[in-house]
């Protein structure tokens, strides 16, 4: 197990470095640059700005300095567009907001999706299976950017239970987390049902039932662990998808999270901010994937042997 964790750790570092290099060189390939819009600045001034930001060094030297700054001082450099702000400060302000959003969405997705999926699998081909599964299917087909405005319209504007948008008090987290969580709850319900059905049809379950194990125990003790394997495997892609979702959700509900910064910086060509945000997202997901991998190896020992 230790070897498994170590090899995954090394691999994660390589992935992270690749992400950093890709984003860094990609953002620098674009023509124009961050100061292209300041038309009335003289070439001398632009030259001076470039010099002070170290933009005249070769790209590889810049990348080396950039990495050194991150690793040694946690310094992602200055933002080119938001004058006087540092990327690390912007990230430190916005990341907790996005994390809170993502984690509450994940909790909602698991708490709703797993029990519904188990219920549908146990009551296969009954109304208790069809109804939740059709709902889940519609949930998947109602993307976050439709669901978000609808929830905001009905629960926010019409019923007045929540603010329609904004990030002022704790209740403002409800609608965004719900929008994101419901979408993944639908997926997880379908995956749980599929996984449980596969396990429930196996011989050892028949043996357990024949032995007279109560049905509740058959489900909770004998099937759940195996049935949840596909769900755990889905968590990696789901977390990556939640990043996409958070871009949309933060846009709809005007939340000052990392997604908002990333989208704005990409549109403004604020290189270092895009780069910093992408690296932080990458690090977060690589770490979460590591956790998911270890969790998977614990649930399914066969996976460990393939390493």
């Amino acid at each position, binding site marked *: 197990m230790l070897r498994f964790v170590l090899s995954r750790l090394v*691999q994660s570092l390589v*992935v992270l470095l690749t*992400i950093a290099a*890709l*984003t860094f060189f*990609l*953002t620098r*390939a*674009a*023509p*124009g640059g961050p100061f292209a819009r300041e038309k009335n600045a003289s070439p001398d001034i632009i030259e001076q700005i470039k010099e002070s930001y170290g933009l005249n060094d070769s790209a590889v030297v810049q990348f080396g300095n950039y990495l050194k700054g991150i690793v040694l001082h946690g310094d992602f450099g200055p933002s080119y567009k938001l004058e006087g702000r540092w990327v690390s400060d912007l990230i430190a302000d916005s990341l907790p907001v996005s994390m809170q959003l993502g984690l509450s969405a994940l909790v909602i997705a698991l708490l709703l999706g797993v029990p519904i999926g188990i219920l549908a699998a146990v009551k*296969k*081909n009954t109304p208790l299976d069809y109804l939740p599964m059709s709902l889940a*299917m*519609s949930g*998947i*087909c*109602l*993307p976050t*950017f*439709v669901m*978000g*405005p*609808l929830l905001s*319209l009905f629960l926010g*504007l019409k019923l007045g239970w929540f603010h329609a948008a904004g990030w002022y008090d704790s209740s403002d987290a409800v609608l965004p987390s719900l929008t994101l969580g419901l979408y993944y709850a639908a997926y997880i319900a379908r995956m749980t049902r*599929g996984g449980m*059905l*596969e396990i429930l049809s196996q011989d050892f379950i028949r043996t357990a039932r024949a032995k007279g194990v109560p049905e509740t125990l058959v489900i909770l003790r004998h099937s759940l662990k195996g049935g949840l394997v596909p769900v755990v495997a889905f968590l*990696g*892609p789901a*977390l*990556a998808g939640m*990043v*996409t979702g958070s*871009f*949309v959700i933060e*846009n*709809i509900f005007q939340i000052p999270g990392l997604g908002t910064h*990333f*989208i704005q910086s*990409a*549109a403004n*060509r604020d290189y270092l901010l*895009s780069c910093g945000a*992408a690296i932080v*997202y*990458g690090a977060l*997901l*690589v770490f*979460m*994937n590591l956790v*998911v991998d270890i969790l998977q190896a614990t649930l399914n020992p066969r996976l460990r042997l393939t390493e």
Partner: protein
Amino acid sequence: MSDSTAKEGGTSLWLDAWLRLRRNKLAVACLGVLVFIALLCWVGPWFTGWTETLQDRDLGAQGPSWAHWMGTDYLGRDLMTRVFFGGRISLAVGLLATLVSLVIGVTYGAVAGYAGGRVDAAMMRLVDILYGLPFIIFVILIIVTVEPLLASIAVKHPAWSFLGSPQAKLGILFLVIGAFEWLTMARIVRAQVMSLKKQEFIEAARSLGLSRSRIIFRHLIPNVLGPVIVYTTLTVPSNMLLEAVLSFLGLGVQPPFSSWGILILEGARQMEALPWLLIFPALFFSLTLFSLNFLGDGLRDALDPKSSKD
């Protein structure tokens, strides 16, 4: 059905699949809905009596009426016409980007499955890693990098001026989206190729002295094609979704084109006063995704009975 099996009263894989699919009422209904929506978007704009940009400024924003079945926006443009035009782009993105995904995914999966061993392990580990990464970040970075790059080439070299056109931007969008949705396809094809190359019926076909091309075209391809068709059907909605997300964020389809994603964005901004602007595009978009997903599920049950979960 000109081969011997049909004469003996058996059914080909495809006829069998079609019969199974036809029994699945929901999948057939979804197929019908999809054909209907595609037809509407294709020929509909000629029959609405309005054009995409025609403005009736005296009218302004009006709810659905006999003249404008889905209402108009604040510029007095007919929403139904705009939904059909937007649908053309959304469906085109779905189909063309999926073609890109298909080519990459099938090639990658087939190479990995055929090579096996270490090459396969390395290639599939890469897929695992890519699965967990936020693709959209790279999609966005590539779009904001490549578009100005091509535009600057277009300015410098008149012969390449088409690179700066809105059509070229749309083309980049197709390519970039398609280039990121091939992972599942690669996994499926690899698994298929790996299990097929070891199976007895291939060995049997070989020992019967069938030619290699006959083995490939009559025995291998039909068996890989089933799952490929299923996942192609399922890739279309995810590509459409990605396009809509990018357009919603202002980074996807650009004017003069529009898409369902853009119409939904415009509708969401004015949903309190003019809810029909959100409801109709969202309805068309969701109905299309719903139908594609159910059709994909139906096709899976029809073409790959082993994987059916019931």
